[in-house]
């Protein structure tokens, strides 16, 4: 009969206190798993959406807001910018590629983005059916949009003014779906893409043919060379009435803001794990008092001190490893559940993704098990069996 089996049987004979310990450990691990999964997935998604965009230029306001609205399509835009000024920047020698965006309408909460063909090459878009938008009022929709709104190539729909409400419909012009994008794994899965002129048309700008009066929301910019990083943003901020915002800098800033909350939760989880470790320790320490006679009997039957040490350590490690496994599973289930209830489809979380860092959680569980059981194990090792037997 192996020490492992003896430890297991001993835990199984005290199901309540064993379960309590496992539960405590699994809560701590569960919270850590949720934090780990959520922050990795959100970071991945954020980076995935902004990976080829060096700078966003838009109306003055909060740079974070500009990034959120123009890259992640979460917040409201900071305002509009004159097309004339945008055009000048687009032809600046520092700029390799500039993509104009015009936001402002939605269809059932899905943002309608007016842009040009540069957008296609910026995100490397492909269609799974139909074609890209070309003429006015043609729209190419993301794969999730097609699925969730039941739209097919050839269908028509009305855009509504604003970014979320569905009240102020543009009844006079209907969009026609001409293509559906292949799954991209980024924000474009959840967008409706159309031409800039379509958006202008919606808002009755068609009368003016010259670009003077026209406005767009923002510009996504790719630099020509790394040199531009130093020069171009300063130039935009000083020489024009526009502002520039760097996605890399702003997401770092965003993360440092969220980070406070993540840190707090992390410490909370560590605290739970610590309490769990103490609980395992108290459990083993108390049961050792009751079991000192058991252990003495095992010694008389020929078990060595090392074996008793191992039996007690294994009890602690079994409890914490079991708790850790359960916690990791709970964490994944919780993330999947959160993902299912998430409204924003831009950063949907999935519980069926495993990441390498989770292996550290197992190591942590192992370490806590050893930490909690080392003192009782040493006591079992050192126990004077003659004294214990004589007392009874």
């Amino acid at each position: 009969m192996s020490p492992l089996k003896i430890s297991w049987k001993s835990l199984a004979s005290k199901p309540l206190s064993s379960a309590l310990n496992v539960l405590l450990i699994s809560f701590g691990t569960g919270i850590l798993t949720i934090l780990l999964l959520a922050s990795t997935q959100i970071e991945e998604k954020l980076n995935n959406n902004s990976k080829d965009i060096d700078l966003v230029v838009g109306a003055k306001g909060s740079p974070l807001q500009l990034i959120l609205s123009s890259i992640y399509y979460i917040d409201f835009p900071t305002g509009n910018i004159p097309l004339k000024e945008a055009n000048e920047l687009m032809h600046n020698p520092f700029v390799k590629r500039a993509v104009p965006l015009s936001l402002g309408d939605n269809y059932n909460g899905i943002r309608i983005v007016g842009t040009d063909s540069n957008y296609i090459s910026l995100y490397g878009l492909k269609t799974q059916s139909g074609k890209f938008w070309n003429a006015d009022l043609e729209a190419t929709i993301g794969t999730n949009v097609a699925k969730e709104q039941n739209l097919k190539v050839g269908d028509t729909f009305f855009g509504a003014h604003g970014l979320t409400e569905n009240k102020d419909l543009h009844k006079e012009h209907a969009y026609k779906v001409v293509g559906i994008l292949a799954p991209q794994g980024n924000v474009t899965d959840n967008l409706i893409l159309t031409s800039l002129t379509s958006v202008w048309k919606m808002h009755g700008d068609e009368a003016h043919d010259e670009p003077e009066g026209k406005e767009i929301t923002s510009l996504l910019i790719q630099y020509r060379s790394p040199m531009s990083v130093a020069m171009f943003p300063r130039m935009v901020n000083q020489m024009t009435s526009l502002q520039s915002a760097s996605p890399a800098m702003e997401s770092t800033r965003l993360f440092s803001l969220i980070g406070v909350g993540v840190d707090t939760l992390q410490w909370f989880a560590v605290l739970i794990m610590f309490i769990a470790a103490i609980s395992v320790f108290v459990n083993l320490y108390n049961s050792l008092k009751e079991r000192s006679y058991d252990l003495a009997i095992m010694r008389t039957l020929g078990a060595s001190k090392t074996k008793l040490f191992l039996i007690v350590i294994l009890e602690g490690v079994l409890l914490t490893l079991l708790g850790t496994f359960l916690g990791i599973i709970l964490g994944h289930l919780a993330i999947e559940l959160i993902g299912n209830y998430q409204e924003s489809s831009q950063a949907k979380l999935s519980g069926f993704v495993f990441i390498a860092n989770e292996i550290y959680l197992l190591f942590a569980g192992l370490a806590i098990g050893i930490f909690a059981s080392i003192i009782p194990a040493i006591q079992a090792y050192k126990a004077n069996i003659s004294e214990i037997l004589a007392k009874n």
Partner: protein
Amino acid sequence: MSKMISIKSIAHNYSGGSKISFDDWKIENGEKWLLLGNSGSGKTTLLHILSGILKPSLGQVEISQTAIYELSAKKLDQFRGRNIGIVFQRPHFIKSLTIAENLILAQSFAQLPKNLQRIDEVLASLNLTDKKNSYPNELSQGQLQRVSIARAVINKPLLLIADEPTSSLDDQNASAVLKLLLEQTDLNKATLIVATHDKRIKDAFTNIYQLT
């Protein structure tokens, strides 16, 4: 016949500072001895010294030509597991294991292979076959004392030691346990030492070691 067990010039200092010394004692193979003494006379101390649980401050214990306290700690544990069976005053088992598992435990701690046939054989000889898969708390004191005899003889020990095996039992159970101890000693070709102050069982023994 070779000397089975001998103790020579044994003395022990208790941690409290008091001292006790024991007369030399030689036991032949297969003999049955009674160890008599009032409580506090050092009975338990001597039994612990004999069974390799308590190293005496002075003197030598030889069992079957092995000076047991010259063995390493690990070897001594193993020697005890294989060659010495102990029956305590109050039977004690691992509560989380069944009777059969408690006996398997005794085999595996002695580093002997698991032998279910031997377990069946011993349980049958003690009339306990139907208790094989019961847990210790499902058995009566008398039954448990029989199981502790089973555990003591499971590895066919050279020496069977019983410390007050009958004092917590009623007359009927006491004589039954005594009978079983004697039977099992012969059956397993062991040597028996029973420490007691129980007058009910004195008559069964001819060899007596008296503590003063």
